[in-house]
């Protein structure tokens, strides 16, 4: 049972988030202002926190900063209507683990929560393995069941990213931020084109598809059952 603390003052947004996360099996509790949010954040154990940036009472960044000072390391996702690049940097510097700009898709929110809950372990293994996939990080070479994959640099990085998050939905925005370091959304379907190329290389004709498209959200890499 995953316990999530939602610190959000907007009733409508809070209601939708609580309902959506509840449907996904999370136990969500809500605090409506900064002061009570900080109090609940430090007095109980939580697996995750979602903190709105602008709150009555105490600013969201101040809450996260205070908790981090008190050595409470609960992963925190900061929600904000402030979308400037500097705001994002400030959010992460205050101790937030991810920063999501309003308005956001609920699917994007839950995908990011999943990622925060299952932090990719920075394994020092030189070879990643998912089902029939193997990725040699030192030799920069990938195989699917002994079939070598001709991966370009970017495709290699994409595959590594997906393999480290096996079974989790990876959204387009996450890929743009983490692979391309773009903090804006290009007009073209850049991510889809690159992912399409990677999929054709990984999932050959007649092979069970490992990478699949999650409509309207992103992509997922799953080992066949």
């Amino acid at each position: 049972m995953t316990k999530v603390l939602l610190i959000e003052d907007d009733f409508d947004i809070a209601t939708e988030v609580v309902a959506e996360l509840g449907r996904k099996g999370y136990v969500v509790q809500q605090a409506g202002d900064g002061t009570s949010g900080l109090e609940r954040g430090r007095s109980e154990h939580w697996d995750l926190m979602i903190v709105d940036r602008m709150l009555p009472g105490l600013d969201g960044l101040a809450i996260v900063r205070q908790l981090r000072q008190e050595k409470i390391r609960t992963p925190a996702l900061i929600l904000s209507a402030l979308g400037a690049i500097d705001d994002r940097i400030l959010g992460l510097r205050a101790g937030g683990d991810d920063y999501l700009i309003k308005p956001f898709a609920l699917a994007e929110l839950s995908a990011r929560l999943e990622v925060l809950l299952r932090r990719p372990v920075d394994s020092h293994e030189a070879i990643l393995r998912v089902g029939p996939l193997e990725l040699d990080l030192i030799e920069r070479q990938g195989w699917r069941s002994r079939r070598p994959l001709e991966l370009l640099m970017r495709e290699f990085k994409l595959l590594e990213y997906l393999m480290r998050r096996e079974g989790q939905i990876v959204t387009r925005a996450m890929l743009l931020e983490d692979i391309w370091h773009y903090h804006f959304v290009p007009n073209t379907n850049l991510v889809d084109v690159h992912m399409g190329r990677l999929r054709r290389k990984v999932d050959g004709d007649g092979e069970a598809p490992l990478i699949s498209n999650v409509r309207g959200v992103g992509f997922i890499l799953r080992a066949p059952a």
Partner: protein
Amino acid sequence: MRLPEILRRTGVRWGTLVALAFTLGTIAVFAIAYGFGTYALFDTIDMSVLEQIELLSERPPGLLPFMITSRMQHKPRVLTMVSLFARDGHRIAGDIPSVPPKLKLDGRVHMLHLIDSEDGRRHPERVAGRILAQGRILVVARTIDDVLALRASLLRALLLALIPAILLSIAGGILVAVRSGRRLSRLRLTAERIIAGHLDERFPVRQPGDEIDQLSAIVNRILVRLEELVVALKGVGEDIAHDLRTPLTAVRARLERGREHAGNLEQVLPVIDRAIAGIDQTLLVATALLRIAEIEQGHRYAGFAPFDLAEVVRETGETYRPLAEDKAIALMVAAEEAASILGDRDLIVEVLVNLIDNAIKFTPAGGRVEIALTMTGDRPLLRVADSGPGVPEAEREAAFRRFYRSDRSRASKGAGLGLSLVAAVLKLHGFPIRLMSNEPGCIALVQCWREPEL
């Protein structure tokens, strides 16, 4: 020390200063007149005393007593008294009873108080004495009672004249205070009207003007600029309203129709999907606008650092290669030579993405897109050329404005803000951009600067 409030007002302060200056000036002029006047009077008296003593000493000695005595017969009595004394001080002739004891007999004029033989009182006199032949002593004295009286009435007259002069000065001061106060309050009223939103108000400027007029002229120029900006902002606001309302209206209509006509859930789902897409498009516009505003405010120098533009060009070019290939467009990327520039890397990447994105979007299948970074002198020149329809010369300027969408792009997706963002970022960096014809197609040229060497 704190001045009372009234004295801290500029107009009143100037007025007081003017009054004070005038008063002091008048007093100085009067003092000088008084000083010179009395000096001249005493000088005249002394001259006449000396003249008399000279004149009498030149007379034959035998005649002198008679001349002095006959002088005394003149009536009305003259103001000058003369006496001739024998060697032993015995008076031979004249109206001074005895040789004044304190008198130096050097022929010069001295100030003494002598007892008048008529009223027996001491009077201030200008006196000169001289020893003649056979030791006889000649003394000439001139009373200065009249001169002192004259001096006193002169002083009285001057003091009396001072009263209207001071009153005039005060009146002048008040006039200055009121005038400058009125001028300042006129400026203040204008300022208040401007604050109230009348941006077309202007401060009065006189020709030729003083410092206040010069200042007013400068503020007026600021107002002109402000007015332009407000008008421009209003235009942008209208553009925003248009570009946000249009998709929202479509979304609303779609949802309304869906609710009216959809018979089952299956029919509602595409309606909802399209509505979400419409809202996303609206949000995209809003986000792009905020980003442009953020960049235009120019507070982003914090992100400035030196980086290699060539590497960014190569990397962004490679990112777009699959897109070009999917559209059968030949994409050439040439950026071999390292070109270190000072800038915000993230923003410059965004510029490149927008330029290449546009180039690929507008180039038909089978066309070409060339991205090149060359050095002209030691300045990196970025060139993004396509073989699309190009931008007509008349529209090149407008292309960088917000929401500009030529007919060729109106049908295509996008916020229509790509080039506005490009323009904003390049302006922040001071890199000029130019659009040219590629016959056919469009060339975007960005002139960069090398990182300044420290």
